[in-house]
């Protein structure tokens, strides 16, 4: 563990500090900020970005990038609601819908990974092109927003499981999966692939499998995010999630993962996603005139990104 602490330590500490400052400012500006219901509602708002950012972390660690996560979110959403509706909207239909949704997410990631790692395409332009394809497919599946999901679905999402708010259960599961992956050799190998690809290859790592896995994970986490969004919106929308890819990249970088690959981790990305979310909240409660909101948000994010890079730089 000591090695991990030394390598990853400073980066996410900085983000954690930034988050703390934002939390304090927000608590001052918003009197009820620390009430459990408000905390829960904020965490609910941030959850999809958190999930997408965790998935994006693996791709970035491996030295690639995935611009298609937003389109995957839309595709998973429309497929899930369509499958649930087609199967009659009962309990089993929801389960099947969820599974199919996850399959579509992981499958889309797999397609990205196979094209990029298998055919040696450039990740930026490739995932941009596949995102066009995925959004096209989403519009094919569901040409316009609608198709409500059954009430138990979104009531459960907004409610509790065994007395614990569902959102917290999802956070927990997401963390557990991330922690599981972090403890596997997979993580070291992925960092090696992102760190220095030739060295990883010469060491005998199966680069193709590792990179494809990373993209599949990114697609899977995008599916998780999409299913949460479906719970939040209770309906299908082929245009969902369009700004998620760029926000997720910001979150990952804020979380101390190097865009060049090889350094970082999912925990930092979670913090980064919270920071991105909190910036929006703080700006709102600071009562800025509306025409300055976008500007100030942009400036804070730019400053945070610059600051993070500066502090963690040696």
């Amino acid at each position: 563990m000591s090695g991990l602490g030394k390598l990853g330590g400073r980066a996410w500490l900085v983000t954690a500090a930034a988050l703390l400052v934002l939390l304090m400012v927000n608590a001052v500006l918003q009197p009820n900020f620390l009430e459990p219901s408000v905390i829960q509602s904020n965490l609910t708002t941030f959850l999809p970005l958190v999930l997408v950012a965790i998935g994006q972390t693996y791709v970035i660690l491996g030295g690639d990038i995935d611009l298609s996560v937003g389109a995957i979110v839309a595709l998973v959403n429309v497929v899930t609601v369509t499958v649930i509706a087609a199967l009659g909207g009962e309990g089993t239909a929801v389960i099947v819908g969820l599974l199919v949704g996850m399959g579509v997410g992981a499958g889309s990631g797999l397609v990205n990974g196979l094209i990029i790692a298998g055919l040696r395409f450039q990740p930026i332009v490739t995932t941009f092109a596949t995102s066009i394809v995925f959004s096209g497919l989403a519009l094919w599946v569901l040409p316009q927003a609608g198709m409500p999901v059954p009430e138990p679905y979104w009531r459960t999402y907004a409610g509790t499981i065994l007395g614990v708010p569902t959102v917290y259960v999802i956070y927990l599961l997401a963390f557990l999966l991330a922690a599981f992956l972090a403890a596997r050799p997979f993580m070291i190998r992925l960092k090696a692939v992102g760190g220095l690809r030739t060295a990883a290859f010469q060491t005998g790592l199966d680069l193709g499998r590792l990179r494809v896995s990373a993209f599949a994970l990114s697609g899977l986490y995008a599916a998780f995010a999409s299913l949460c969004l479906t719970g939040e919106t209770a309906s299908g929308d082929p245009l969902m999630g369009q700004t998620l890819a760029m926000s997720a990249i910001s979150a990952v970088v804020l979380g101390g993962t190097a865009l060049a690959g090889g350094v970082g981790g999912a925990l930092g990305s979670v913090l980064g996603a919270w920071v991105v979310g909190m910036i929006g909240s703080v700006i709102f409660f600071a009562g800025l005139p509306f025409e300055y909101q976008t500007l100030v948000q942009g400036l804070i994010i730019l400053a945070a990104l610059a600051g993070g890079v500066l502090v963690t730089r040696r």
Partner: protein
Amino acid sequence: MQPILRARDISKSFGAVRALEKARLTVERGEIHALLGANGCGKSTLCKIIAGTVALDSGEVLIDGEAAALGSPRLAEEQGVALFYQELSLVPQLSLGENIFLGREPRNALGFTDRAAIQCETEALIARVAAVAGTGFTPDARVSDLSPDQRQLAEILKVLARKPKIIIFDEATATLDRRQVEVFFDILRELKAEGVSSIFISHRMDEVFAIADRITVMRNGETVAEFSAAETDRYAVVYAMVGETGAIAASVRDHEPLEGDARLVVDGVRSTRLGPVSFVAKRGEILGLGGLQGQGQKALLSGLFGAEPFHVGRVTLDDVDVTARRPADAIAHRIAYVSGDRGRDSALPGRSILENTAIASLVREKRHVIPGAQFRERFADVLTGLNTRYAGLDAPIGSLSGGNQQKVFISRWLSPAPGLLLLDDPTKGIDLGAKGDFYLLARKLADEGATVIIYSSEDSELLSLCDRVLVLNGGVITADLQGDRLTPFELTRASYGDAA
């Protein structure tokens, strides 16, 4: 008995470059086998083919008499082959321990990485080289924080950790100092005792004759000779390497002490791992920097060139202040710098030979527009003057072998000739023929009035080339050897300082 490794009729081309032409190599069980040859003769390529990282065009490799699967590094490892890569195969972002066990991480019962085991097994490996590894060589040290020689040691440990039956060391000693080489040789001998076969590539003839049992010599992609080390001598080996036409550079040192005035005055310079250092050098002098590796020689050179500027101190050349804040300052004062780390410091990969050659002249001559044919000719002449072998000025730099690339990078500074030439281990990984050309060139430039300062990791190079050698230890000059005192004995003694 079956040889453990037999490579037959291996051919390989990279586009137009023929790297190997029916090359062969036979290694017996438990022997240390030296593989020698000039730069670009195909040694590394042959090794990489055996280790599965380069695909061969034709030929076959037998391990223990069986046809080996060469499809991937992974397969090679499974067949007991491990390669120490000349360019190293370490991931800078990972720790030493993670690098050593990359791809074969110990796991606990749950299938999770067993970090405690990595720590402990890495420590055991480090113990083998601890005496010469220097500080900070710990399991959780990040590889990017290690010094070049420590990285080389790390690569050695990484190869050992794979417990192979055939190990190929491709210039494993290139940046090691003498003590480290000794430790490495001890390891080689242990391996030999365990029945492991080693292939040892080096451009240092001393090392080869100190450790090798048998020697295979390659030239231009072909295997031209095989010797038993005990039954041959350097002359025969070198003769095989360079072929009949090759001229072997004799000692070119001018033993007469130089007349003339101090021309370069370095006064109290200091930087992070250097100083204070003061010395003077004369016109026409070849001044060597000696000592153990990493004692500030490189810092001094890059400081003089402005690449890592001095914090304090002053440098004058012909009474002009030339203390450089950045390389451009130094270049403006006709100071030139050639590094031995071509990939990092010199090569513009993917660009043409002309661009690689001419770019510095454009800067020096403050030209903004590329001139025409005459300009090209000028550089063609310089390259020809250095016996560079190249297809054309517009061919990419990557089409040349290491030695020829280095000639290109030196030619950058020759038109017009520099006043002060800084050479930072410039012949690292360069074959004997090219080295000879190189020594002659350095002497010629000095005779024409340049001052040359050279750092070399090979003492013999300093001894044969330099008029005077400054020995550095811990960042300061501890000895100034010239005339009668410029001997191997004095140089070694001064290098080791009191510790010797």
